[in-house]
């Protein structure tokens, strides 16, 4: 499921693999990613149940969602990336600018011009 891991496996000869470096992924996030991959590969659940499970899975604090996005992006797992990005998008939908700023603790930088 993870293209990064897949590429790593494919490029390195099998008997030389001891570990694949995933240095940018924290352990607790990696746990969740593995949980996701296992669930989606098991093919035991129906599509509808899997969707419900996905909803439950993504029902976490947005800081965890950010970590998941970055990890899924790094590990190149497109379906997880879409799921989590969609969840963040859902959090934004229907809110006014003030509410969005408040939700993510974003400060108003209204007239800031990019120097760099």
């Amino acid at each position, binding site marked *: 499921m993870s293209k990064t891991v897949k590429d790593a496996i494919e490029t390195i000869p099998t008997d030389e693999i001891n570990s694949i470096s995933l240095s940018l992924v924290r352990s607790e996030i990696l746990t969740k990613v593995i949980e996701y991959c296992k669930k989606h590969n098991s093919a035991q659940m129906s599509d509808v149940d899997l969707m419900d499970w996905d909803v439950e899975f993504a029902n976490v604090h947005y800081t965890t969602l950010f970590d998941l996005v970055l990890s899924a*992006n790094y590990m190149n797992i497109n379906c997880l990336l879409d799921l989590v990005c969609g969840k963040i998008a859902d959090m934004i939908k229907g809110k006014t600018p003030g509410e969005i700023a408040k939700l993510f603790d974003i*400060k108003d930088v209204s007239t800031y011009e990019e120097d760099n």
Partner: protein
Amino acid sequence: MRLVMDTVEEEFVEIPIPIPSSTSSSSMAKRPCPSQNPRMELENLLYQFLSLSDRPSLSLDLSFENLLQSMPPDTDLIDRALKMGSLLLDAAKHSSRKRASNHNSIVWPLPPDLTFKIFSMLDTQSLCYVSAACSFFSKCAKDPLCYENLDLTTLVPKVNNAVVATMIQRAGKALRSLKLGVVPATACSPGFCQPMVSTIRKAIVEAPNFSWNDKRSRQGRESSVLTRCCLSPLSGDGGAPGALLRKLHLYNIERMDSTSLCGALSACPSLLDLEIVGIHVELRQTLMSVSANCHLIERLFFESSRTGRDDSLKAQTCSELVNNCPNLTSLSLRGFKLHDCKVRILVKGFRKLKYVDFSSSYSITGNFLRNLGNCNGGNLLEVLILRDCMHLKEMEVIRFLTAILAGDFKLLMHLDISNREGLACEADWYHRCYSSNNMPIKQVLEARPDMRLVAEYPSEGSYAETFDAEMNSDISLQFSSPTSDGSIFMSTSESSYNSDHGSGNEEGQDAVIYGESSDEDNNMNL
């Protein structure tokens, strides 16, 4: 990737000046002794000055005035004060913004490309709101990828030309789908009977704070109405926005006419999915424009704004459409005057046609279905909807069902021949057949358990009330065509049919029967 900065630790230098106990939260830490470095000297002076703000009895204006009086009269002290004050203010604001921006980059750790991804999943209004939340979002929200799929449909008229133009411009050549117009919420519920046009007027008038008078009185000033040129930005910028547009859905844009629509279509050579509902355009002209410009089209959904009053379609238009648009798989022409001969050209001619919906059309009797199953164009049909076709004859339906029983139309999955006023009897269309007893429906259902057959008729004498009740309690009308995005099709079964629609002349025009018909057909008289 954007760098996430650690919180910068402020370094302060200690100076030998007694400072009253500070009540501010950011306490001034110790600074080492000032060196001879002039920059450090300036920072020290600045620090000293700023630490004055802690003094409880500070009256800067008084001190300044006193200083001024002790200076010679031609002093430029005031100018200096103004200049330095302004510089300090700007510096403080700039640093404040910089820190806020750094703070934001911590609380929103996603790089621009992932932010685009999230923003591209937002509906257009949320996109506008999010871009107003902070400048980083504003920049990200301007990326063309966020505007790939524009959904500017609203419940009441709210979007005007300027909004459309801005959005299309932002999308540029990334634009892939555009939905525009007025779609009332009630129209989206399944089983809904009323045609969209009248419902919209009703919804608009009942919407709070809306008044038609307001719109008119604001002419010349900013209005919330889309005019006929609302799609001209598609042709702008060398035609870039329209060039790769795949999907165009237009709903109830009052002021759009055939010319402007055809102009828009000429800018969209890559169009795959065209949906037009409640727009005052002529069927023939629109199909000609599609024929001429949109050769890749796969889905055409056309619902008339004047149910039953558009009789512009010509056989030649149908032939041209068939020749120029071979990829069409889904065809819906609802609420038009359609003759069997012309419809037959379409259904036979499109080699890949799978989904057909001619609901609420009149003049077609079902004759076009004869001998369709065993030749090109007919045997690929998966969905056939002929709901509320006033002239659909029971006899033709029986024929069709018999053909199915005989093994034709093997791929047909969904057939809808319901009619809120029953089917037309043979001799006189004004007489209706209400029961499905004559039709081999049970046999078809047994022979083809995979098929969904919808045949709802009112019991004799009762019309709309029973029909509505049936609609709500029975099988829902939700169906998605293979290439659509799952939008719900509702039937427009309001009968605005007058008795003068079914004249003898129209019946006569259906008398042409095509080549491979059997002897039996040749003997049939309509």
